[in-house]
């Protein structure tokens, strides 16, 4: 059950966060424009001008990876810590 929740959580999170990251990059998504973007990543102005990705998109995407892959492990690790033996 825990595994299923983890997988579903990651899928739901990825849908929301990656849409936000894509929006921050300036890509059109199906939800925003009603159809797929006509502009591919390779054709986007950022790529043509040789510029780096917008910082906001990188922040959002990094936050997503932290939330999906690292934060659950930290919680599990803290929960797994054996309590200190009680003083006699």
């Amino acid at each position, binding site marked *: 059950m825990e595994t299923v929740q983890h997988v579903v959580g990651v899928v739901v999170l990825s849908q929301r966060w990656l849409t936000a990251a894509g929006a921050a990059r300036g890509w059109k998504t199906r939800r925003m424009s009603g159809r797929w973007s006509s502009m591919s990543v390779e054709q986007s102005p950022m790529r043509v001008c040789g510029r780096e*990705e917008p910082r906001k998109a990188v*922040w959002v995407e990094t936050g997503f*990876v*932290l939330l999906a892959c*690292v934060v659950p492990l*930290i919680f599990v690790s803290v929960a797994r*810590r*054996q309590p200190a033996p009680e003083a006699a």
Partner: protein
Amino acid sequence: MFQAAYRTLQAAVAIATVLFVISRSVRSPRRFGLFRFRWRDILYGLGLYVLCMGAYYAFWIAVGLIMKLLGAGGLSRATLGGIATPQTAAQYAVLALLSLVNGAAEELVMRAYLLTRFEQLFRSTAAAILLSAALFAAYHSYQGYVGLVTVALIGLIYGMCFARWRRIWPLILAHAFQDFVSIAMLALSR
């Protein structure tokens, strides 16, 4: 067996997530250290594993000596009591596979993706190495303070090696060796 399957699934989800995110980036996967495997990577991985073990022993011997000089109490060992250990050849094979998958997941997330992104966001390689090592140590806190410091030390060495080599394969292999040998030694000592 259930524990092994659960951990493999967790690692697979992390690998898939990071590879998907990297594939969406306008940056080349090579910027994240994703190069084709070379046989030489095994040697680099073994070398890194030996380096980490050397640093581990040197660090804790030095800490032990300092504590002895100061008259402080002894150190408690890392807590790994809850980890299931292999008994049969088949279980050792599963452990080897699990170590490789787990090593791939952790190194792809912590070094290939996060270290590269932190470097980009903070514009400092040192800060990126420190932050990724701190996060790496944070989710190993179940191993107690000794384990926490050891993992932070290993995280720093892995981060420095990744910043220098810019290849993820040696780190995945070193991590897999590390996991496999630690758990195999735990099994043999029981």
